[in-house]
Structures are given as structure tokens and as C-alpha cells.
């Protein structure tokens, strides 16, 4: 979160320095762009914090559970179990009526978190596997990923707008004249940075998101003491292979598996690894099986401690 606000601060001051001659005697008394981009960052952060979860849930068409339906009650029970296992408060539970198997967690903190599951996931997976998926989402809540991820989806849009603004200023003649007075060694790299900032922000967000997925998988294994359930769930979902149409590039990183299913995600190359919002499924499954098998993994250690 702080990184993102710093990022905004940086873009703002750079624009000020280049176009408005701020920080010199001739310039305006206020660094306009800095203040503008800072307040923009604060505003989006506040929106994300207080309403981000609701915005995302309603944009995906999530509905509350109907406890008369046995499958919904089972889901409710499973979420209760995982809340107990992780020692956190019971999150709100939603379903999306969609055949694509997927799930997400959103909200700002543990107390107003929500878990959302598609009906496709409920029909595809058995109890043990659903438990693994729910544990993964609860672990996102416990690791405080949900606020971060909700912020990321709203801030990604914001950075793109600011950078666009900065780039357009470059072509106008007034600022062109101002630029010629400055040291080219300073302003050329800065301009390149502004032009690239949406891409940088995206890479940053994706890198954070991928690491968080591994962490949540490990957390799920810790809560269920059963990494195989989650591994089987991932295998089934991989084989079902179905894109989830309501998801967009802005919300893709919130999901349990990549809902867009661009081909780049399934490869394990270096470039593919940089651009993907989720780690390759095969690698996630392999790691989970390793947790189930090898004694030196974290899961096994905690189990040994408990028995002693």
C-alpha cells in the first residue's frame, strides 16, 4: 500500500519538476501535480478500503447464500470450519451463478471480509477439495492480502490515468521549451519512467499477487493439514478449463485460479512468469504434493510439533 502511494508521489513530483518548474524560484508556489496525484491516491485508497469489497462483489454479480439448498449449507459449514481452524471471524459467504469453477476473497480486513465461490466449483469438487479452496481463501484473509489486492485493482486504473496525463504534456510546445532548459541527462530517464509506469505498476502487482498465491496455498495446507485436497481441486479445475466471463484484467488477480486463462499463464518461462497474475497451476500442484510428502516442509514441521 505504501509502495503504491510512494509511486504516486514519485510520478507527481516528476511531472511537477518537468512541466511546471516547481522547486525553483520561477515556478508556482505549490507543486500542483504532486498534490493532485497524492489526493488522487488517497481518495482511491479510501474508496477501496471502505467500499472496494462491495464494488467488486456487485460487479461480479455475487449473491447471498440460500441455506435451504443443501450445497449452499455445505459451503457455509465448510467456511465455518475454516474460520475455526484459522482462528478468524466468520466471513460473509457469497455464490456466483456461473459454471466456471473459481473462487475469491475480498473486503478490507478480517472483520468485513467476504468469500465468494462459483456454483461451478460447488458441483465440480467434493467436500474435501472445496475445503482446500475455502482454506486458500481464508488464508488470503488471514495474510491481509485482500485489502492489498482490492487496492491493487483500483490503483492500477489510477496509475494508468496519471501516466497518460504526464505523457501527453510532453508533446505540447510550452513544456517542450521548458524542457530544453533542463539537463537532458535528468529529464530523459524521468520521461521514460513516466511512460513505463503503468507497465511497472502492473509488473509489481503481478509479482505481489503470484507470491501471495503460493503463501495462501501453504496457509491452506496448514489449516486443513491436508495439502492433497487443494492439490486435487487444482487438478480438477485445470482439467475443466473454462474461462470466467465476468472477470476483467483489473480483477483477475483476486481469483483462486486465473479466470482469463490466457495461454501465457500455463508456461513456466521467464517472460511468462513476469506477466502472469497467477503462478503456473502445475507448479502450485507440485509444491502442494511436496508438502504432503517431504518431511522438511513447513506443514510437516508444525504437525510434528503438535504430536510432541
Amino acid at each position, binding site marked *: 500500500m505504501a509502495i503504491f502511494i510512494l509511486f504516486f508521489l514519485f510520478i507527481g513530483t516528476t511531472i511537477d519538476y518537468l512541466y511546471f518548474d516547481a522547486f525553483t524560484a520561477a515556478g508556482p508556489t505549490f507543486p500542483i501535480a504532486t498534490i493532485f496525484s497524492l489526493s488522487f491516491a488517497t481518495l482511491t485508497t479510501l474508496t477501496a478500503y471502505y467500499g472496494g469489497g462491495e464494488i467488486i462483489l456487485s460487479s461480479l454479480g455475487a449473491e447471498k447464500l440460500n441455506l435451504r439448498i443443501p450445497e449452499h449449507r455445505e459451503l457455509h459449514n465448510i467456511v465455518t*470450519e475454516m474460520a475455526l481452524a484459522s482462528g478468524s471471524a466468520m466471513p460473509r459467504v457469497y455464490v456466483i451463478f456461473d459454471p466456471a469453477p473459481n473462487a475469491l476473497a475480498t473486503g478490507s480486513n478480517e472483520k468485513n471480509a467476504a468469500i465468494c465461490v462459483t456454483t461451478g466449483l460447488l458441483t465440480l469438487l467434493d467436500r474435501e477439495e472445496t475445503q482446500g479452496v475455502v482454506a486458500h481463501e481464508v488464508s488470503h484473509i488471514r495474510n491481509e492480502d485482500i485489502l492489498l489486492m482490492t487496492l491493487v485493482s483500483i490503483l492500477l486504473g489510477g496509475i494508468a490515468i496519471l501516466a497518460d496525463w504526464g505523457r501527453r504534456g510532453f508533446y505540447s510546445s510550452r513544456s517542450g521549451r521548458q524542457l530544453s532548459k533542463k539537463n537532458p541527462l535528468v529529464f530523459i530517464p524521468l520521461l521514460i519512467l513516466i511512460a513505463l509506469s503503468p507497465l511497472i505498476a502492473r509488473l509489481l502487482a503481478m509479482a505481489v499477487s503470484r507470491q501471495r498465491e503460493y503463501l495462501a496455498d501453504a496457509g491452506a495446507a496448514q489449516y486443513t493439514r491436508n495439502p492433497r485436497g487443494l492439490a486435487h481441486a487444482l487438478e480438477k479445475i485445470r482439467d475443466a478449463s473454462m474461462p470466467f466471463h465476468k472477470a476483467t484484467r483489473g480483477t483477475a488477480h483476486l481469483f483462486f485460479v486465473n479466470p482469463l486463462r490466457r495461454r501465457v499463464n500455463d508456461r513456466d518461462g521467464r517472460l511468462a512468469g513476469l506477466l502472469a497474475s497467477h503462478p503456473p497451476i502445475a507448479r502450485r500442484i507440485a509444491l502442494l504434493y511436496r508438502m504432503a510428502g517431504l518431511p522438511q516442509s513447513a506443514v510437516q514441521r*508444525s504437525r510434528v510439533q503438535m504430536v510432541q
Partner: protein
Amino acid sequence: MIFVIWGVIFVIGIWLISTYNGLTALRLRIQNAWRQIDVQLKRRYDLIPNLVETVKGYMQHEQDTLQKVIEARSQAMASKGAKQAAEAENMLNQSLGKIFLLMENYPDLKANKNVLDLQEELTTTENQITFARQYYNDLVTQYNTKQQVFPSNMLAGFFGFKPSELFEAAEAEKAVPRVNLSLSR
């Protein structure tokens, strides 16, 4: 020089306060986790007579097994302390597992919606008990570790923090493979 001494005192003070508060918070969370387990256990005790009543009509030949479940339930309800409770619970688990296995032989039962609902309720209650205990044990391990490692052990000894008791699964339960309570769909 005097600043260095004040600095050291300040750092030690901060450490004392945070360690003491950390231990106290853990102790309270452990107490809360223990109460959580009790809530789940109570719910299971309430569910068992319902299940027995519902399946009684179908399972004419298994009256002995049903009787055993009822007995195990009352024993578990009367038990005191972590050790004794674990043994009684173990008995109850085994007899319940037997009933669920026997139910596979009665197709009528598997089609009965009431029974299916009860079964899901019992399954989730069992799981909730397991997970609540797991969480309790995780907390206790954390608490006890903190009391024994240097340097927080000095503080724990001075303020009289006592290690908590882990909830141990009975040896028999470890050997028996876990029974899957849900009917195959």
C-alpha cells in the same frame, strides 16, 4: 554515555512490556479457543439423539450399536479434564463411525433427506471440533514455546506463566484410518 544507558533501559522496557502483553494475549486466546471446542461438543451431543431417533426405524438389526452410541455420548458428557475427555470422545467417534459404515447397507436411509441433512450437520460438527482443537493446539504450542526459549523464558518464569496442556489424540485414533462420514455422491 548517559544517553546510551537510558537507551538500553528504554529498549529493555519496551521488550518487557511487549513480551508480557504477548504472553497474556496468548493465554486469553487459548482460554477462548478451549471454550470454542466446548460449544462444538455441546452441539454434537444435541445432534446425536436426533440421528439415533431418525435411523432407529430403519436399522432394526443394529440396536446394540445404536445403544453404544447413546452410552458413549453420556460418558463423554460426564467426563472431566482434557485426558479423560479425549478418551470418552474417542469411544464416541468409533461408535459413530460404525453407524455411518452400517448405514451404507441401507439404501432407504441414503435416500432420506432428513438423514442426509443430519449427516452433513454431524460431519461439519466433527470437522469443527477437529479444527477447533487444532487451532487450540497451535496456540498452546506457540505459548509454551515462548515460555521456554531464551530470552522470554526469564520473563515467563518471573511472572509465573505456566505451560498449557495440549489436547492429544488417543493412540488408538492415530492407528485407525480416518472414516469419511459423507456418503459418496
